[in-house]
């Protein structure tokens, strides 16, 4: 009578025992397991499971501009803007200390053009680095964690400061646009919010060179540029930090976004106010909507 009951108890307890054992779900183990101690999360929300095997960087399952290994959800608008600004400033300061050449492009360049700030509806920052710089970062700074005395989001464990991770895509060596799964060469990741900066390397356009064309440059994301439009870089300020800007900034912006992007003062539910030189939410409309 007692023995069957004991067996029954053991039978009941077994599943609990297996649950309490610290395990990682097999399917998406790799990334998060290697980051033990660096992330406070136990569940990987990176989109790795749905991504092709050859893709190195994974965007989170909840938003493509967050790293699912470090975040569970998106940030509220104001917090995101502060976090993005810190992300950018820490990145620029780190690259400047290391001596790696970097400059802003795309949406960030447009934000810089309007008022030296990230546009309030932007959820990412776009930067490029030179080929020598990506090589240098890959050789000596891959997977380095950089600590900054910036208070983390309220209520988080990172009140004492924030950590940022520099991760280089091992596929950076493959400069071909056919490697479309790995167009991002490196990332600067806010380890407390999961926000990141996509870093792409500006390479010599071997294809154009083989056709006898000089001074052509390209990125793996298939953007092509003339070297003379990017270099020499200009020194300016972005989000209060020193920043490098491509030589023909005005021409690059017009080519990418059209003339209207340089004149339209209403965009994404925001109005550009001349007095304050700020993008402010339109009355009666939610910011960032």
């Amino acid at each position, binding site marked *: 009578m007692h023995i069957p009951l004991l067996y029954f108890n053991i039978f009941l307890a077994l599943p609990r025992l297996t649950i309490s054992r610290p395990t990682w779900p097999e399917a998406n183990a790799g990334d998060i397991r290697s980051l033990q101690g660096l992330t406070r999360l136990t569940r990987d929300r990176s989109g790795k499971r749905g991504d092709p095997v050859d893709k190195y960087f994974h965007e989170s399952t909840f938003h493509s501009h967050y790293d699912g290994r470090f975040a569970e959800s998106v940030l509220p608008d104001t917090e995101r803007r502060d976090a993005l600004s810190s992300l950018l400033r820490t990145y620029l300061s780190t690259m400047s200390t290391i001596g790696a050449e970097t400059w802003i492009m795309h949406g960030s360049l447009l934000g810089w053009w309007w008022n030296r700030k990230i546009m309030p509806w932007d959820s990412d920052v776009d930067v490029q680095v030179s080929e020598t710089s990506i090589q*240098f970062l890959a050789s*000596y700074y891959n997977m380095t964690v950089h600590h900054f005395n910036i208070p983390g989001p309220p209520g988080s464990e990172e009140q004492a400061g924030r950590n940022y991770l520099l991760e280089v895509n091992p596929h950076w060596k493959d400069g071909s646009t056919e490697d479309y799964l790995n167009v991002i060469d490196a990332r600067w990741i806010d380890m407390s919010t999961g926000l990141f900066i996509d870093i792409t390397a500006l390479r010599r356009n071997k294809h154009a060179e083989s056709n006898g064309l000089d001074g052509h440059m390209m990125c793996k994301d298939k953007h092509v540029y003339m070297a003379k439009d990017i270099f020499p870089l*200009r020194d300016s300020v972005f989000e209060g930090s020193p920043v490098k800007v491509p030589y023909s900034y005005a021409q690059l912006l017009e080519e990418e976004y059209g003339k209207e992007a340089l004149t339209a003062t209403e965009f994404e539910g925001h109005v550009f106010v001349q007095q304050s030189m700020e993008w402010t939410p339109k009355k009666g409309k939610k910011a960032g909507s």
Partner: protein
Amino acid sequence: MSNHATAYDAHRPLIDLIPHDSLYVSDEEDGFYAREEDEFLIHPKWKAMLQQTSNRIPRRVQRYLAIYLVFATIAWIGWRSFIGPTYNEYRHEIALMDSTTTETFGANLRPEFKGIIQVKTMDKKHLPVKNKRLVVVGDVHGCKEELEALLEKVGFDVDNDHLILTGDIISKGPDSPGVVSLAQEIGASSVRGNHEDRTLLTIAEMETAHTPLPGPEENANRTDDSLDEESFSHGDYKVRKLAKQFSKKQIAWLRQCPVILRIGPVSGMGEVVVVHAGLVPDIPLEQQDPYQVMNMRTIDLKTRVPSENRDGTPWEKFWNHRQKKLPAAERVTVLYGHDRKRGQNIQKYSKGLDSGCVGGGHLTALVIDSRGKNKYVQVKCKKYVD
């Protein structure tokens, strides 16, 4: 008998001698001849009247009428196919140039860069009063000999005259450092052209170590000659080579050249400003985008966005149009260079002075005397580049 027969023959109608069946020769059908009296293209009565009238009009007048008609047709076709559309385009352009929209270029916070001076005002002592003159010279591009020849031709007097250069005084030609030294010696003013801009930025880049700091396994004393470094901006080799030719003093002089030089009021000309490429009307000098001021050629009239390509309206056309709309006291005359293709281009409120010296054209000087009289002096240049 024979007489009778003859008599008989003489009385018989000849038609009787024709065989009966061969009389009908027309191959037309009967209906062909069956037209009734009132079925005419023009009624004979009318036809007669017309003829009467036209006979009364002299032949010569009729001829001229026909010629006028042909001319009128040609004029009408010409209007429809060419002149009309061109005229409409012109009117559309004028309407665009007159329009004021809220969303135009220049609403942003003006891009600002370390080491680039936006606006400077020329020292008042150089203003052309009494026997003083201003000598404004277009893109020199390192043609020192030609500049010296031009100064001699205008009878340049260092004590009384002031030389102003419209930028692009270096690069392409044979002696860029020589031109800078000459300008320095005679106390000239210059604005920053796109060639100065690129060269100075390259110099700044060469001064700061833009190659990464040595890695832990590398020799700390590693020196990279940025001139020979190929992987990075290798297309700039020429610029870096030029950059190395300048002395520290010359670089310092080039750096103090502003993007915009305000000359001040010149009698007979009003307010005068010097830039390298151009200005966007209705935007204060402090608000002008420095890249555009050094590079623009045209302006898109709809958005007022300037551009260095030639698709839009020439900026100086728009500039002159807008100045004429302003009260006389607010009008500004721009002296500039940059546009070698359009060459010397003199309009009321814009004076283009780049006449392609380095490519074998001319070096042009605008001499402004105290009465505001403008005189243009040129020297022929050797061909240094194509």
